């Protein structure tokens, strides 16, 4: 049996049935990882010893007949901006190159409690700023489908690791599309849950009002399995929502007949790769054939979402990045004569270009002269965009769109053009601005490169989104074991 080809669900079942041991699973994945990493660079830190120890504890539990958690034995990748106690957490930056957290993030605590096995920390754009995983201090991650191309970003390491079968499932973070866009580029499934559904305690903040931890997997069920393990109210996160817990696996296979789907005319009129558009239009036909009701809708202010997102996110970034001053943790410059120089030299030497650019623009838009004109204006437009979505969800269950307007681009192609890079997120940023949920699933391939379909749901409607995604995946057979490399 080739363990790495199993889905996370299958691994768990075979472990429970004693067909394989947790050690077998971890060793198989570490072997795979060692083979693939030379090419991919999907990981910053590999926690081999910790993973093997965790596997032995699970095998011991099985021997003693103890109850196993829902993630028992499953190897998991964790994006490197999610705090892991005693395991280096770098955020892909020189600033945190040697940072070993003395505490645990809530999501990792939950994964461990569910008997999941953390295999390592995945590569990412520096402080999650980017759409290609090219801005990491630890080098570029390559797309396993075509190593000349980017895996997307900023959770590119997590998406590549899942696609390359280095791990079964992974955690990412999504501020403007950072789970969904790399999922689309790597041909895997990626979910950004509703803001507040999953605790952000221990996620190194990029933009607090937009960031959300979410899940990546090779099929919808695996994504739902990890989601089940990490949801729930957390008093350590003041934005966490206290609500009844839903089982996202149960009800996943229910029929989608009669579901009402809206397709925004503005989205399809945007400038995008025609081949991507064609795949999306084909997908719409598939939903119609499955008995869903598909209609054209309008989101009139969607064209302003990208500028709104850029202003709000950089404003929040500029204040979040102020904590990195070289005093309590992080990089400290060697040469300085005054305290001011210590701050300036440490930050100037340890932050990359993209991080500096965003800090600068955020500070500019929050400055006394621009606050009203730029930042407050964007916050108001955010209200209007949110109202557009609210109105649509009164009549529709789901909104469909492409995940990215383009196919995975070549390494280096857009790194010198920040605006072109930001445009990769044109379809994903409105979801973060409005705090709703969305998933990206593979909906087809163009010349061997994957196209992602974005399925958008209202607040806390993850089950609807997952159900529709599952039905689609089953129909087109693009998920799970069918995407073998």
């Amino acid at each position, binding site marked *: 049996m080739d363990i790495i080809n199993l889905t996370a669900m299958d691994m768990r079942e075979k472990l429970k049935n004693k067909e394989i041991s947790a050690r077998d699973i971890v060793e198989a994945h570490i072997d795979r990882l060692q083979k693939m990493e030379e090419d991919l660079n999907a990981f910053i830190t590999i926690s081999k010893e910790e993973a093997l120890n965790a596997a032995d504890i699970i095998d011991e539990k099985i021997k003693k007949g103890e109850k196993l958690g829902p993630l028992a034995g499953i190897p998991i990748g964790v994006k490197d901006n999610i705090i892991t106690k005693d395991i280096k957490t770098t955020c892909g930056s020189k600033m945190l190159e040697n940072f*070993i957290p003395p505490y645990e993030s809530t999501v990792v605590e939950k994964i461990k409690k569910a008997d999941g096995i953390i295999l390592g920390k995945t590569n990412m754009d520096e402080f999650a700023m980017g759409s290609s995983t090219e801005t990491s201090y630890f080098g570029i991650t390559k797309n396993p489908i075509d190593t000349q191309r980017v895996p997307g970003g900023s959770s590119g390491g997590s998406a590549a690791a899942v696609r390359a079968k280095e791990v079964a499932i992974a955690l990412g973070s999504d501020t403007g599309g950072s789970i969904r866009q790399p999922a689309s580029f790597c041909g895997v499934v990626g979910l950004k849950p509703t803001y507040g559904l999953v605790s952000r305690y221990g996620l190194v903040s990029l933009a607090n009002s937009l960031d959300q931890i979410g899940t990546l997997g090779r099929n919808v069920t695996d994504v739902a399995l990890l989601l089940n393990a990490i949801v729930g109210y957390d008093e350590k996160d003041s934005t966490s929502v206290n609500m009844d817990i839903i089982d996202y696996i149960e009800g996943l296979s229910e029929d989608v007949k009669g579901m009402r789907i809206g397709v925004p005319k503005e989205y399809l009129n945007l400038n995008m790769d025609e081949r991507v558009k064609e795949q999306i239009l084909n997908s719409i036909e598939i939903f119609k054939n499955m008995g869903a009701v598909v209609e054209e809708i309008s989101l009139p202010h969607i064209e302003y979402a990208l500028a709104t997102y850029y202003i709000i996110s950089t404003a929040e970034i500029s204040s979040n990045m102020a904590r990195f001053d070289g*005093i309590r943790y992080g990089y*400290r410059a060697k040469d*300085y004569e005054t305290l001011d120089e210590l701050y300036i030299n440490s930050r100037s030497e340890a932050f990359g270009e993209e991080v500096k650019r965003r800090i*600068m*623009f955020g*500070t500019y838009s929050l400055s006394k002269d621009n606050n009203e004109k730029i930042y407050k204006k964007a916050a108001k437009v955010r209200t209007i965009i949110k109202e557009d979505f609210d109105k649509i969800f009164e009549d529709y269950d789901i909104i469909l769109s492409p995940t990215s307007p383009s196919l995975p681009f070549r390494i280096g192609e857009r790194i010198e053009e*920040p605006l072109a890079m930001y445009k990769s997120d044109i379809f994903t940023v409105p979801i973060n601005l409005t705090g709703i949920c969305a998933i990206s699933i593979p909906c087809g391939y163009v010349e061997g490169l994957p196209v992602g379909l974005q399925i958008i749901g209202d607040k806390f409607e993850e089950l609807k989104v997952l159900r529709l995604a599952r039905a689609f995946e089953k129909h087109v057979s693009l998920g799970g074991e069918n995407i073998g490399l």
Partner: protein
Amino acid sequence: MISIEDIMYISEMCKLKFTEDEAKKIIEEFTEIINCVDKLGEVNTENVAPTYFINYNMQLLREDVVEEGLSKEDALRNAPEEQYGYFKLLNVMD
């Protein structure tokens, strides 16, 4: 239009430094971004309330009881420099 002086002033606030060439590049990028941002002027936002946060949770206060925090050792574990159990800094007063 943004000047080099503006960029230098903003960078001072950000505790970052740039060479003149880097500042010129930032001006170019800023101009491009500002043109894109200016588009928001087309949207009528009169009488619209700004959205700063999506969730308006009640901020709960915990009971005023002493709880265990990070140990001194843990708090200093990642400090670039420490001395006598404190974060080490330059003298700020003579």
